[in-house]
């Protein structure tokens, strides 16, 4: 091999090394940065929402957790004669979720369940199917045992 060819090979090697370095740096740069806001604030959000909503007194002068309790009991008389308490609770939770999380374009899913009982309140969700990773969920337990479990998950 001639000397000139060897020198060109040298330059090519340097250029290749630099290009690899640039690709590496660009790769690092393009990695999505995790928002500190998301990791510090959101774990509280679901729990705060449930703690606040479940103790809220509605226009029927009854708190939301008592309405849910009534929905899972055989009485169902707390929401007046015309309204079904399960429907009343569902509408109340849906409106509150839309006002807080929906207005911020956050995907969420709220489920209400009781061991050994049928699903009386359908899942309330928004854009949940598209969610890849969710935040720490919030739980609210309504006695007596087995408790009614209200679970709220919010998408990251």
């Amino acid at each position, binding site marked *: 091999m001639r000397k000139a060819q060897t*020198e060109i090979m040298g*330059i090519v090697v*340097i*250029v290749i090394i*630099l290009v690899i*370095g*640039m690709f590496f*740096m660009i790769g690092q*740069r393009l990695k999505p*940065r995790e*928002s*500190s*806001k998301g990791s*510090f*604030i959101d774990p*509280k*959000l679901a*729990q*705060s*929402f449930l*703690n*606040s*909503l479940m*103790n*809220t*007194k*509605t*226009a*029927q002068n009854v*708190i939301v957790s008592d309405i849910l309790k009534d929905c899972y009991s055989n009485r169902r008389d707390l929401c007046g004669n015309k*309204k079904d308490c399960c429907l*009343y609770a569902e*509408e*109340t*939770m849906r*409106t*509150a979720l839309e*006002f*807080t999380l929906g*207005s*911020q374009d956050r995907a969420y899913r709220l489920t209400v369940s009781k061991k050994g009982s049928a699903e009386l309140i359908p899942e309330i969700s928004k854009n949940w199917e598209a969610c890849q990773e969710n935040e720490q969920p919030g739980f609210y337990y309504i006695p007596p045992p087995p408790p009614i479990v209200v679970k709220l998950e919010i998408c990251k």
Partner: protein
Amino acid sequence: MRKKAQLQIMENVFMLLIVFVILAIALVFVMMMQKAAQKDKLEEYKELDMIKKSQILSFLPEMQCSDNNNLDPDCFDIYKIDVFTEHLKKDKLYYPNLLGNIKIEIIEFDPSPEIPDDKRIMRTWLVYDNPKPDVKGEKNLQFPVLLKDVVENNNHFGVIKLGVYE
């Protein structure tokens, strides 16, 4: 012989020139990356500042509900909010230093199905508003809270809105 030596010198000079050009391009690239990284860091500091401010808000016993000195971080007493709002209007030293350039707004919202949509917002408190002289923007956070009326023994659903001025 002399011509060959000149050619060799020229060849070396060109080689050095090419290497310098490549290094200069690499340097410019690295500087651009550094600048972008600094911008990212600045954004992160802003977010951390916002978190700091939101933490202050969570630990403001001036507005939180208390029962036998047990504070509830998710509950605000509406009478305390009224008094604290009035106090903040007069205070020009302690709270502006503690809270900085932020806006705190509390909204009482009724999610009951029988309430029409345009009447759901029952009350609004502008607790604190201290904008910067040259406001470039505002970052907002929202937390759901319980608003307690201890006199009427009533609990309302509410949202506390925190705006951090940039």
